[in-house]
């Protein structure tokens, strides 16, 4: 498998989903999974998948001792793997900037020279594909499609690509042609395409011109939360209802609809506070909008939250809102439900396809969003019903089932060959 992010160092939903799916597949048994990421930190869980770091894979031959390797990258990878990989260098990449181990450095994030990093990743993939014996190649999201294609060309094994999002979701239609081409290239080379929702499946079929039989939906799931997170204390002295938006403040997430709905609710209700947690390129615009609506006293921005802070925020919330304009799946409402927070989600998000005990609205329908918020904070039965039924529902959405579906797809592909 080729991925870009892996917990605990994640920047978005991609890492969580890649991790959950891998674990879910391992739970079904009889799987030997190698997971390639650009830059492992060493604290990734290794119990169900072998992690190979692209930045630890040599592309130029260097004569280094076992001890030196152990000291340099021992926390990430077994030195023997390094030697195995070194034996499969297929071309001289000394012209590229490599380090003392003959490896290319990766940031593992989304830097400005992202395209260059994607290209380097694909070069490294050539080495790994020659080293690791596999039956299936699985690429997560567009950043790793070129690597997947390269590995397929080297090994001749079937390629499955996993579409966690398309550029149509990210840009509200103003597609970046370079990204589009990488995506489309990946889709045409793939033997099978997995999408995280029917919504995304439709995009892949219609916008990228991919034949429908090649595309299957496997909905995402959630990991059960740890006891520690579930038992977080709610902040004391809370007197008003808290309505929370959590996510990147970008066009895709529809933050302005949240502000408009908040303005409506606040004109009628006084003991409510709205929180917009996260950061993004529309944050300043949102702050100005909040000021223009005259609700700054009860509308707060927290900035980017990470790790435990996210769950502390959820614990303090009475309503969770995700008014995304276009959301391939959207895992965060599921997490909110796990924390017992009633959720309002847009019908334009993929998770709306599988969730029952949430309120679904059109993202642009700020009246409906406001009505739903009002109902949850004013009528205790509504809150209770959504909370209890939501918890029960989300506890049944597990990665093991998603993993089984992916394994079925693998079997079909291997059977066809």
């Amino acid at each position, binding site marked *: 498998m080729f991925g870009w992010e892996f917990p605990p160092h994640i920047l978005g939903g991609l890492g969580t989903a890649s991790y959950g799916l891998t674990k879910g597949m391992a739970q079904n048994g009889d799987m030997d999974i190698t997971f390639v990421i650009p830059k492992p930190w060493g604290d990734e869980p290794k119990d169900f998948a072998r992690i190979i770091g692209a930045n630890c894979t040599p592309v130029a031959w260097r004569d280094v001792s076992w001890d030196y390797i152990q000291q340099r990258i021992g926390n990430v990878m077994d030195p023997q793997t390094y030697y195995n990989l070194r034996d499969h260098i297929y071309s001289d990449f000394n012209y590229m900037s490599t380090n003392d181990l003959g490896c290319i450095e990766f940031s593992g994030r989304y830097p400005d020279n992202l395209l260059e990093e994607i290209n380097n990743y694909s070069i490294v993939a050539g080495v790994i594909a020659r080293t690791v014996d596999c039956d299936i190649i699985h690429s997560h999201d567009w950043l790793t499609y070129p690597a997947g294609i390269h590995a397929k060309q080297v090994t001749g094994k079937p390629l499955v690509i996993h579409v966690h999002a398309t550029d149509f979701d990210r840009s509200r239609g103003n597609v970046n042609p370079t990204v589009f081409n990488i995506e489309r290239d990946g889709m045409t080379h793939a033997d099978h395409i997995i999408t995280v929702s029917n919504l995304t499946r439709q995009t892949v079929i219609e916008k990228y011109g991919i034949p429908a039989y090649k595309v299957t939906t496997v909905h995402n799931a959630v990991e059960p939360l740890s006891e520690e997170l579930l038992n977080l204390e709610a902040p004391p002295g809370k007197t008003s209802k808290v309505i929370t938006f959590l996510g990147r403040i970008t066009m895709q997430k529809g933050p302005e609809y949240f502000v408009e709905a908040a303005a*409506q609710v606040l004109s009628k209700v006084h003991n409510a506070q709205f929180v917009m947690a996260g950061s993004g390129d529309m944050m300043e615009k949102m702050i100005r909008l909040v000021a223009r609506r005259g609700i700054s006293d009860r509308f707060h921005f927290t900035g980017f939250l990470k790790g435990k802070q996210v769950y502390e925020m959820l614990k303090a919330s009475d309503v969770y809102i995700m008014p995304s304009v276009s959301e391939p799946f959207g895992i965060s409402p599921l997490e909110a439900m796990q924390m017992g927070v009633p959720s309002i989600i847009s019908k334009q998000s993929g998770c709306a396809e599988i969730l029952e005990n949430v309120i679904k609205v059109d993202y642009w329908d700020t009246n409906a969003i406001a*009505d739903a918020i009002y109902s949850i904070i004013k009528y205790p039965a*509504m809150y*209770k*019903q959504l909370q209890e039924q939501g918890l029960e529902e989300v506890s049944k959405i597990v990665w093991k089932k998603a993993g089984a579906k992916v394994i079925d797809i693998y079997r079909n592909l291997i059977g066809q060959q």
Partner: protein
Amino acid sequence: MKAICFYFQIHQPFRLKNYRFFDIGNDHYYYDDFANDEIITRIAQRSYLPANEMLLDMIRQYGDKFKVAFSISGTALEQLEIYVPEFIDSMKDLAATGCVEFLSETYAHSLASLEDSEEFITQVKVHDKKIYQLFGQHPKVFRNTELIYSDDISALVASMGFKGAITDGAKHILGWKSPNYIYASALAPKLKLMLKNSKLSDDISFRFSNYEWESYPLTADKYIDWIAQLPDEEQIINLFMNYETFGELQPRESGIFDFMRALPRFAAQRGIEFWTPSEVLAKMKPVGQLAVPYPISWADEARDTSAWLGNTLQNEAVKKLYSIAERVHLVQDRRIKQDWYYLQASDHFFYMSTKHSSDGSVHSHYSPYESPYAAFTNYMNVLSDFMIRVREQFPESIENEELNALLLTIRNQENEIEQLNREVEMMRRNIVKDTTGDFPVEPEKDVPTPKKERAEKKPAAKKATTKKTATKKTATKK
């Protein structure tokens, strides 16, 4: 000797318009007139009117050999009066034949029987009055909303003087017993019970046009054959269904109307008669008692009240609604009284059901809302406004009992003042007459003494309800 007893239910609620929380306190009109008009007119055109015509033809053809019974809710009657008055006329024609019996029920098709016995009794009386006004019959047999029934309800119904009640032959109540007999209530043995034969009723109302059903196509002679083949002791077959069965649930082109028209002919061949519920109760004796400690109904797979009170949302909405019942009973405002009835319709709670699979699809089929949550939100917004209006009627600081006493005093004084005014008027006239000097002044004798409303009755009823709420409170404290 066997008999078939047909009873048809007609009910439509006043559906609520999209009522936003901004409207609370500002807008006091709650109903979606357009949808209500559209739905009742469509159903009347496709079902009620042609079915009435069919029944009228059949009664004309077979004389008093063919009889049916109707239960029409007050809210449906009101809508029909407004939007489809020709239906009321056609119903009057049916009533005039003497072969149609009207049953009693709650005016609003409400859940009052489960929540508030005082309200329940009032609604039944209001409904019976309406039936008498329109069709000139005093209903003798009771049928509760969606056939909801329990021992407690049977005691209430018996206390109102009904001879019999209609309910569902739920399997978990009947066990091995057959619904084709008359039973008696366990708590009020004088009250006879007629039970719906679910299999034979649903054969017509749900399975008639189902191609996958092994008995498709269902013909009148086959159907009568089934009934004739039942054991000789099972004498009464109760076929209870929605009137929409004809033309709406089973479309006209399925042949449902011709099926019905053919029934009496084949029934006559096999010696099967048609009786109204009153006739059944007069002619037959109960074979045993039926204990129903927990309420049953004819809705959903479970045949209990979970269709309306199955989840947190529904319970909350119902509890909130009946929490103001006592206040509403004191109010004289006619619009509030009207809204009070309309908001009680069980349908509003039916829409809030979160059941899945086949039950769930029935709920969402009838619901005008996208989801149960939308149904709840909208209803609660309306209810919030309604409660504000009710509270505005009287100062909140006064307790219900005190308020009741004060209102009684005011009403008595009103009567007295009116009486005295009349006397004064009379006196004046006499004085004017007397100026002619022809007649001596005679004291007025025929002035009736002011009729005082008796206060004893009310507090007695009050006590019962307050006790009930008191026990409830302690229960929740535990």
